[in-house]
């Protein structure tokens, strides 16, 4: 049973959620937060990191406990584990990145209800070893994070003309253009519907490049 940590099978756990089995664009899970916190790149980034931490923690813990969790209360146990991790993340954000925590507001708490996390716990961690669960968590969290950051990039660039990057801070990109040439920012980009449309466009591009994702018409 000794299997290399970086075996083909394990690498698939990381790669699949990035494209073929992306939690947002293919499984269409966790859409709610993707709409809400993608107005700025920085908030999207912090949200992605938070989900990464919670998902890795929950997946590994549930996987370690998979043989001792009574099956009748397994959903409750999973929820308690996820909720505790989320509260930890929330407390840490409040202490160290207060501004971002204010912007994320309730959405950190809502990670608890993020379908991706419960989905991975039920579908993967309960039946697999901690190592594999760890990779599965990393893969899915990255799959989620990539979409968040891509959507936030386009929404912030065209909606506000800036890019707010973590550490670096706010970079004004299109604002000088706006001042000199009469170019107007597209205010619609900041509103939630455009997040949905941006995700839609991403799905469209993804499917046109990756034809096996297209459902057959009967």
């Amino acid at each position, binding site marked *: 049973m000794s299997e290399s940590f970086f075996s083909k099978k394990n690498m698939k756990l990381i790669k699949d959620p990035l494209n073929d089995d992306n939690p947002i664009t293919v499984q269409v899970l966790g859409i709610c937060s993707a709409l809400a916190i993608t107005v700025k790149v920085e908030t999207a980034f912090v949200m992605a990191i938070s989900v990464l931490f919670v998902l890795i923690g929950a997946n590994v813990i549930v996987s370690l406990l998979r043989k001792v969790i*009574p099956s009748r209360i397994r959903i409750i*146990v999973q929820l308690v584990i996820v909720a*505790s991790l989320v509260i*930890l993340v929330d*407390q840490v954000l409040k*202490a160290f990145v*207060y*501004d971002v925590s204010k912007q994320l507001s309730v959405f950190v708490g809502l990670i608890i209800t993020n379908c991706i996390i419960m989905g991975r716990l039920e579908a993967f961690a309960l039946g697999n070893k901690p190592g594999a669960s760890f990779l599965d968590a990393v893969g899915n969290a990255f799959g989620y994070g990539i979409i968040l950051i891509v959507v936030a990039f386009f929404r912030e660039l065209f909606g506000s003309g800036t890019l707010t990057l973590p550490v670096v801070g706010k970079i004004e990109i299109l604002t000088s253009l706006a001042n000199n040439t009469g170019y107007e920012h597209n205010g619609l980009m900041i509103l939630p519907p455009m997040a949905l449309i941006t995700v839609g466009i991403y799905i469209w591009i993804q499917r046109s490049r990756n034809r096996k994702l297209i459902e057959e018409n009967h």
Partner: protein
Amino acid sequence: MDVNSNKYTIGFSIVMVVIVALLLAFASEGLKPMQNQNIEREKMQNILKSVGIEVTRDEAKDAYDKYITEEIVLNDKGEQIEGDAFKVDILKEYKSGGQKNFPIFIYESEGSKKYIIPLVGKGLWGPIWGYIALESDKNTVAGASFDHKGETPGLGAEINQGWFQEPFVGKKIFDESGEYKSIRVIKGGAPEGDKHGVDAISGGTITSNGVTEMLVRTLKIYEPYFKS
């Protein structure tokens, strides 16, 4: 061992709850000082913002100590009493009975003195709050800053924007005869030259009314102090 027996299930739940509770309690206690510091500095930032000083959170403490030279607590009759003005939770003062504490922060720089008063009120969806600063004549508004918890974006939420706050500057809370008028947010726009009115937000009527209510109620409490 049967992991699905009732005994085991109950035992498992109890152990799990105890571990989780301990963990979270430790985390919460350990991080509290840093969280409180953030909240305190944000308050300092907001107080300074009402007199037009924008500082980052890290600079807030130094700037606050430099510009805010006096913190006063008043009771509901407008008399000065003992107390730590900065620590007063103004929302609780309105709710609780008995002795009331109303803080004033006094800003002093290059000979000019301004009086900063904290405000709390209700918007459409939740609390709104802010600070209003008066010039040394205790009548003319030097600046105002408002914020909100969850007002409608683009409508009520605009109260934290400059275009709403700037017109407050130069307004007066007493008329020529010294009668208390407060400042009102007027639907449809304040008439030209109105010393006691500013433009309301179209589509944000309830939030605008909340701002008016907050100003009328709060400044009234400080009237005796301003007249003394």
